[in-house]
Each structure stands twice: as C-alpha cells, then as structure tokens.
C-alpha cells in the first residue's frame, strides 16, 4: 500500500466515523422533535419532516376555550412532583400500564378514575374503583367538577389542578 493510499483510507475512516455520529444525531433530532408518544403512523412522521415548526398547541387551546387550570400536579404520594399538562385530552389514572398517570399503589385500582374537560372546567369521574376517588374529604359518586387547587385523593396519592 502506498503512503498516499493509506492517508486517504485514514481520512476516509475518520470522515465515516463522523458520518456515523452525524447520522445518530439526525435520528436523535427527529426523535426529539417528534416524541414517540404520539400515536402517529410513519406517514405523518414523514410529513412533519418539513421545516416549519408547528405552533405550540396546548397553550392555544387553553387560551381559546378559557379552561381553568392547565396542569395536573401530583402533590403527595409515590409520584410526588409529577406534572401533566392538561391540553383538553382525557387523563386516566390507575394502576393499568396504559393510564396517563400510572399510580403504582396497592390501594389504587387498575382503572381508577378519569379526568376530562367539559364546558370549561375539569371533571373527575370515578371508574368504579375499590377504594374510591375523593375530593378533599368527600368520596365522589358521580362525575364532579374538580376546582383548581382542590386536593384529589386516589389511594395514597394526592393530585391538584394548578394554573
């Protein structure tokens, strides 16, 4: 092998190494811009490859509809500190792995409760849980409006809607 060829191979190797790094960074960038939690198919993901960044959705909706409170915060229990943005979608709570907030607690049911938006406020509905869903000190039996700041108790966890 001539000196020149070796130098070329050497530089090509370094270039390819950086090519690999760049390829991973590109994959990474797409993953950050399109979080995997979206149930999008491959098609929609390709579509969003375009340059224009989409306007952020959640604040727009909440401003338009004047929903009170925009985040659900776990203030006590094993998941303390967890914050979920309320963006008009239904939130399910329970031990089942497909819940929005998985409450890993022996005193919570698999499908414990759901929170959904109705006429500008947030409504909690108990889904037939064993130990009940409580707002402050009272156990709810029907879908009940959850005011901002009121403690919602499920098992050993306490949640709260905050602005």
């Amino acid at each position, binding site marked *: *092998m001539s000196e020149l060829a*070796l*130098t070329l*191979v*050497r*530089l*090509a*190797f*370094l270039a*390819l*190494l*950086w*090519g*690999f*790094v760049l*390829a*991973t*960074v590109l*994959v*990474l960038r797409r*993953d950050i811009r399109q*979080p*995997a*939690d*979206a*149930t*999008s*198919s*491959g098609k929609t*993901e390709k579509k969003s490859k375009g340059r224009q960044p989409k306007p952020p959705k959640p604040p727009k909706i909440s401003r338009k509809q004047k929903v009170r409170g925009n985040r659900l915060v776990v203030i006590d229990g*094993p*998941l*303390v*500190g967890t914050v979920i943005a309320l963006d008009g979608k239904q939130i399910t709570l*329970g*031990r*089942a*792995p*497909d819940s929005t*907030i*998985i409450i*890993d607690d*022996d*005193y*919570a*049911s*698999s*499908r414990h409760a759901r929170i959904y938006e109705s006429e500008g406020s947030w409504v909690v509905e108990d889904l037939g*849980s*064993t*130990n009940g869903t409580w707002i402050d000190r009272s156990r709810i039996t029907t879908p009940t409006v959850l005011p901002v700041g009121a403690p919602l108790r499920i098992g050993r966890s306490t949640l709260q809607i905050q602005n």
Partner: protein
Amino acid sequence: MSNRRNVELALLVFAWVLGILGTLQVGWSTGEGTPPRLWITTGAVALIALAMHLVVRFRAAYADPIMLPVGTLLTIFGLIMIYRLDVADARRAELNGAPIPTPDVYSQLTWFAIAGILFCGVLILLRDHRRLQRYTFTFGLLGLFLMVLPLAPVIGTTVNGATLWIRVGTFSFQPAEIAKILLTIFFAGYLVKTRDSLALVRTKVLGVGLPRAKDLGPIVIAWAISLGVLVFQRDLGTSLLFFGLFVSMLYIATQRRSWLFIGFFLFLGGAYFAYSTFGHVQARVSVWIDPWTYADTTGYQIVQSIYGLANGGILGAGLGQGFPDLVPFASTDFIISALGEELGITGIFAILLLYGILIERGLRTAITCRDGFGQLLAAGLSITFALQVFVIVGGVTGLVPLTGLTTPFLSYGGSSLIANWVILALLLRISDRSRRPDLSKVSPDDAMTQVVPRLKQS
C-alpha cells in the same frame, strides 16, 4: 408502524462497515495484508449484532433506535484496537525471539458473543422492568456478596495490587462489574420507596436544610462500603464509581441539592483519609500533579499515554501506524489513549460524542419513563456509564488522578463487556416501555387492589 427499527438496522450496518474498514486499515498499514480470518471475525460480529437487533425488533419494538448501534460501534472499535495491539505484540515478540503471545481479539470476540446472548436473554426473559423492583433487597444482598467475593480466600485473586478478581480454574471474572448492576437496581428500588422521607423531613442547620440523622443512614453506609472497597480491595475506581452513583441517585430521587453537598464533603473526607493512609493513593496523586518527575517509574504509563496522544495530534497517526503498544495495559485501562494516538483528537471526540449520545438517550429514557422505579433505574444505569467514562478518560489524559476503571464497551475484558451489554439491555427494556404508544394490548396489572379498612365515622 413508526418504531424506528429500520433506522436501527441501517445504523448497525453502518457500524459494521466501519468495523471492516478499520480492520482492513490495520492490516494494510501494518503490512500484514488482509487479516487472515477477516470474514470469519466480521461475520461473527455481524451475526451477534443481527441477533441482538432481531430480539429488539420482536421483543422491545419501541425501544430507542440509537443505543444498540452506538454500543455495537464502540465494541467494534474495541475489537479493532485489540486486534491492532495483538499485531504489535506479535511483532515485538518476533523481534525479541520470544514466542508469539495468543491474540486477545478472539477471546474478546467470544466475550462479545456471550454478552450478546445475555443481552438477548435479558430482553426475552424480562418483559417488564418493574418486576425487578420486587427483588430489591435480594439484589442488594447479592450485589454486596459479589463485591466482597474477591476477598474470599481460595477464589479471590490479586492482580496488579487490586483484589478485584475471582478465579476458578483458568476462568477469571471481576464480580464488581455485575455487582454494579445489582446495586443500581437495589438503589433504585430502595430510593423509590424512601424518597419521601429523605426529601421532605429535614432540620435547618446553618441555613441548609439537612436530613434527619436516621435518614442519613443509607448514604453513610454507601460511603462506608466504598471506603471498604478502597481499604480491602485497593481499588480507587470502583470505590469512586459506587459512591458517585449513590450520591447522584439520591439527588435525582429527592431533588434536594443538600445531598450533593453532603456527598461532596463525605467525598472530601474520604479522599483525605485515603490520601493520608494509603501509599498507593499518594503515589497516584503525586503522579497526577507532576507525571514528568516520575516518568521512569510510577508515572511511566501516563507519560507514555500523553506522548501517544501528542503523536496522534489532530488527525491521528492512522490505525496501525502509531505505537500504542508502548503504553502498558493499552488494551484495558489505556485503550482510549491507544485510540487517541491512532485516530487523533478527531476520532477521540467522535468516540466521546458517542458516549455522550448514549448517556443522553439513557437519561431521556429516565425522563420519559412513567414509573418511579424505571426512572431511577434508567438514570442510575446511564450515570454508571457517565462516571466510568469521566473517571477513565480523565485519568488517561491527566485531568484527574488515574484510577483503574474499564472504558465501557471498548476495554478488553469479559466481565466489563458483559456487564455493559446487560445494562444496555435493561435501558432498552425501560425505553421500550416508556416509548410504547399503545398500551391497551398489555394486560393490566392483575394483582388485587387492596381494600382500605373502613373506619367508623362519628
């Protein structure tokens, strides 16, 4: 389905092609010609990587697409460098008329195959990482047992002053590498249960909220264990790794900065104690402060490593064209300086960036994970990578005192390779859980919900 498995496969093929090119480059530039068993070895690597990819595709379909290719590329780079050092050793032996030593690359390849099998085993057998949480204390005890195992009279072996190995027949193993995983699982399971009391109950001392004395127990025990490792096994690196891991996991679990302060002061105390008590720690520190004074004795390794890096320069000497074999332990502790010499700072930065990406993916897995145990486990496992890379690369380049730790995936050594691939499998399992878009097919936890006993209300 947008689960990115094809991206992963493409990146794996890319890594494999880079591996072939690197091996060929070593062969050509050392004058060996095309390596004799090129297609067998690269074929074996391809087979292992393909098997791992297929297991991920069918058992963890939504897992992160980057971690597996990055781990594979790093392992391949390790194999290339070990092959290159084999060639150099054979040359040297030939010159001296000594018998040619057995090449290390085949045993490393065997270890890679075993690591691949374990990787697949973890992904196939462990369907849900939360199952590990049930065995928190079992893993903790097992981890501790493995840590002290090298001190056992018959099987424990001391190599180069550190009592880290066990040896059964011709087979030797470093149990601390496996203990690292078990103890991370233990820390995650323990902290997820106790973090409330660790985070919330505290007394104010000098304006800093300090935890209660009884809550300090675990951190003091972790500190004592890592000091114990230092005293009895004479291994700085492992001791540092465990303590750093525990402090950072405490910090992540409780989100209290005071743990970092406490950890830092305990570290300073431990470091001072170690420095004033042990000769080998003092030697390490003085070599770190001024390696050139000890260039012929204790500082020989580090000085050779720095010469090597300087010889590499910006673009490197080229694979097979440097003198990385002049550094003692070039294939284990000093593999980064060997790579630095032949690939230059350009190559080293690419490798460090790959580590950065790997750690970032691990921490992102922790952020997106929806259960507390998985979050802490993913964060802890990523932090072991981060700490190891920092300590060993810092040591080799003279940034921090040199301590013997393996470079994840790159270093020659079976225990370390296996442990790192198992860690990667665990991270992919957690990542699969947290990125899975539709979980309705997964059966809900069938365990019975416990009923709160009803109190009579007055």
